[in-house]
């Protein structure tokens, strides 16, 4: 096998491996709860890891917003608040729910107005460098 062929095989193998890893992660029920004006928006979804290795979700970004952070709502002695979540580990064959009253993405400063029903691109970022692009649907807060 010549060098050229070996390089091509190597590249193909790399591409296959990358695809396999990306396929291990999937997202369902992705929606943004759209508030009026330019108020911060919460993003909810279910992230599933069907791979053999644990992964660490370390953040998210969106071309539609200037800032995206991960938060968790808290309830202490009848007081509601929230705290930043720097990262979240997802076990092999595990799932994480971002749900109202719990984990949520906080998306701030819209780059342009968003309508109900719009598909908004959000990329989930993992500590190992993986990136997962997801379309979030903008929904009315009263509908949830």
């Amino acid at each position: 096998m010549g060098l050229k062929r070996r390089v091509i095989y190597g590249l193909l193998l790399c591409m296959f491996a990358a695809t396999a890893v990306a396929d291990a992660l999937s997202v369902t029920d992705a929606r943004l709860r759209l508030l009026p004006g330019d108020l911060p928006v919460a993003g909810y979804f279910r992230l599933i890891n069907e791979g053999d290795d644990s992964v660490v979700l370390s953040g998210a970004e969106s071309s539609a917003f200037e800032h995206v952070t991960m938060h968790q709502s808290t309830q202490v002695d009848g007081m509601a608040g929230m705290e930043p979540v720097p990262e979240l580990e997802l076990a092999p064959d595990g799932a994480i729910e971002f749900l109202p009253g719990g984990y949520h993405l906080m998306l701030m400063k819209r780059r342009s107005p968003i309508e109900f029903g719009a598909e908004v691109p959000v990329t989930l970022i993992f500590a190992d460098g993986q990136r997962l692009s997801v379309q979030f649907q903008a929904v009315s807060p009263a509908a949830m």
Partner: protein
Amino acid sequence: MGKQLFLILSVLLLTGCGEQTWRTTDISGAMPELNFNLTDEHGHAVTADDYRGKSTLLFFGFTNCPDVCPTTLAQLAGAVKLLSEDVRKDLQVLFVSVDPARDDPATLRRYTDVFGPRFIGLTGDRAALDALTGRYSTTYSYGEKDESGNYDVSHSSAVFAFNREGDVRLLIRASDPVEAVAEDLRQLSQDS
């Protein structure tokens, strides 16, 4: 601690002799009647007297709250949807912003309109908000500003419910199912 014990004892005492059964938490008599001086979402000075005559839900929050506040208001909107038109028109939800620096009347109006015509935004200065939150044994506080000037506000997570005379009746929590809330709102509309 003493205040909490008193509240629990009062609730036990009162639920023992009441004939009504509620599915959310009965706090009848454990807290004072509704009373406040605030500014409404049209910029008008208002008092609790302006809202007598209808069942009233009171919730403290702020519009820059992405998760808990819209979740609570959606829970209430879901319950309102289950009510007949007669019961629905006899109900109002007062969303009191404890973040007057960011929540002006126009912002409040646009925000509460999303949840339906029964939702009314109110706010006030620190003295007025301190008086109202203190009256219901709760509080609020501001987190540190981040580099873009955003800050979190902690606030009571529960909703207080009053009958048409402004007498306190219920504490509604996030864990209460929408059907239970709707059932209690029906009963509240008969309460006087």
